[in-house]
C-alpha cells in the first residue's frame, strides 16, 4: 500500500464527513477531499498527517469559496427553491430534512473559526491538531470549542422552539 493509499483509507471518511458538514454538499465535499489527497501526494513529507489534511482541506474550501462565492450563492438559492418544490416520498424524510435544515442554519450561524474547530473535533482531531490546522494556540482550543458547542446547541434549540410554536399555531 502506497503512502497516499494509506492516507486515503485512514482519513478519507472523516475528511469527507467534515467537509460535508462544513459545505452542505456531498459532491463538493468529495471533490475537495480528493484535491486534498492530491496535494498530499505532492508533499515530500507530512509531519502531522491529520492536522495537515484538515488544514489543507479547510484552506481549499476557503480559496474556492472566495473564488466562486457568487456562483455558490446562486446555486444554494436554486437548491433551496428545489427543496421547496420537490416533495420526497419517504415519510421520515420530512422530519429529517427539517432537522438537517435547522442544523445547517445553526452551524452556519457560528463564527468560522468556532465552526471549523467543532467540526474537526467531531472527526477526532485532538486539541493540538486543531490548533495546528487552524493556527490557534493550543490553550485557546478549549475556549473555542466550549463557545462553539454552547452557541450551536442554543441556536438549534431556539430554532426548534420557534418551529414547534409555528406548528402549534398552525394546528389551532
Amino acid at each position, binding site marked *: 500500500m502506497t503512502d497516499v493509499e494509506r492516507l486515503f483509507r485512514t482519513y478519507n471518511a472523516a475528511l469527507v464527513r467534515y467537509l*460535508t458538514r462544513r459545505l452542505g454538499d456531498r459532491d463538493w465535499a468529495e471533490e475537495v477531499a480528493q484535491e486534498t489527497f492530491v496535494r498530499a501526494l505532492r508533499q515530500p513529507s507530512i509531519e502531522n498527517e491529520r492536522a495537515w489534511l484538515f488544514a489543507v482541506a479547510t484552506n481549499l474550501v476557503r480559496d474556492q469559496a472566495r473564488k466562486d462565492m457568487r456562483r455558490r450563492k446562486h446555486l444554494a438559492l436554486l437548491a433551496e427553491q428545489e427543496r421547496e418544490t420537490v416533495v420526497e416520498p419517504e415519510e421520515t424524510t420530512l422530519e429529517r430534512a427539517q432537522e*438537517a435544515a435547522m*442544523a445547517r442554519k445553526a452551524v452556519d450561524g457560528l463564527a468560522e473559526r468556532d465552526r471549523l474547530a467543532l467540526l474537526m473535533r467531531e472527526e477526532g482531531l485532538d486539541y493540538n491538531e486543531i490548533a495546528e490546522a487552524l493556527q490557534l494556540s493550543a490553550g485557546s482550543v478549549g475556549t473555542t470549542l466550549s463557545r462553539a458547542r454552547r452557541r450551536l446547541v442554543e441556536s438549534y434549540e431556539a430554532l426548534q422552539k420557534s418551529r414547534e410554536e409555528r406548528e402549534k399555531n398552525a394546528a389551532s
Partner: protein
Amino acid sequence: MQHLDEGTIHSWLDGALSADEAARVEAHVKECPQCASGVAEARGFIAASSRILTALDHAPRGVVPIAAPKRRVDPLVWRVAATVLVVAAGTLVVLQNGTNKETLMSARAKIEQAPVVTEPTVAADEASPNTAVSDAPAIGLSRRAGTQSSRGDVDGRENKASAGGKSPQVGKTGGVSDYAGAATPTVPTIAAPMVTRSRLSDVAAMDAAAEREQLRVVGTPRRIGAKVTLYEVAPGDTVTLTESIPSYLSSIVVTGAAVAPTAQAAGAIQKSAAPSKARADAAANARESQTAGGVTAAAPAVSAPAPSAQTETANTLNTITWNDSVGNTLSLTGRMPQSRLQAIRIRIERERAAAAKKNP
C-alpha cells in the same frame, strides 16, 4: 482554587489536559457543586452538538449543476441554412406572384435592404428581445394558415387583408408577414419574421427561444407495438412521440382521419366562399403559388432523414412521421402547426442522440 472556566471544563472532558491539570480539575469538581453543574451542562452541550452535526450528514448531492448538453450542430450552420431558405422563399414569393406587386415589392425591397450577413458574434441571449416579436406572430400566422383549408369564408376575409396589404387593421408590414406565413407553411416560425426583417439575429433569437422551451417528458402511456412518449413543449402544450418497430406496420402511421386538402382545393373553397370574388381570386392564386414555393423551399430546412409522409388535419391534431437511422418509424402528434412539430422533432432527435451518447 477558583471556579473552572467553561474552556477548561471542555478541555478536561475532551481529555486535552495534562495529567496534573486533569487531577486538579477533578478534585475541584468533586467539591464544588457550581462547577459540577457546569460540567454536567458541558456534557450536555458536547452530546447535543454531536447529535446536531450528525443531522448534516444527509447532505444533498449535486448542488453543483451538470454541464449543459453540447449542441450537436453549430448554430452558425442553422443560421446560414435559415438565411438561404429565407432568401429562396422570398425570391419565390416575389417571382411567382404577379397580383400583389405593391406589397411584394416592398417585401423584396426589405429583403434587399436588410443586411443578410452572417453575424457570429451576435449571442443568442443578446438577441432575445426580438424573440417575443418574431416568434409569437409566426405561430399565430401558421395556425391561421391551417384554418384556411376548412373555413373558406373566414379565410376569404383574411385574404383581403393580406392580399391587399391595405387593410387598416393589418397594415403594410402585417400584410407582408402574413404572406410569409402562407408561403412557407412548413417553416413559418423561421420564414415569417425573416421576410419582414431578414436579419440573422432573429434566427439566433428563435433558436435560443426554442432552446429555452423545455422538452419535458410528462408521460409514457402504454400502447401495444409502440413506445409512446408525451412531451410538454410549453405549459399546457404537449406533443406525442410514437416509436413503432417497422415490422409491426405495413405502412406509415398516420393519426388523425382527414387528409388536408391541397392548396388548389383550398383555393377553390376560398373562391366560392369569399365575399369579394375578385380579391379572393387574387388571394387564392397568390396562395397557390406561394404554397408551392414554400414546400420546395422548406425541404432542405428539415435537414434530417427525409420525412416519409406529412399529413395535416385542418385546425386540429397534426402529425409528422419519419424513419430514424435504425429503421424505426416515429411519429409526432400535437395541436400545433407542422413547422413547430418539425422543430420539436429536431430537438427531440437531438436530445435522444445526446442521451444515446451518454448511455450507449
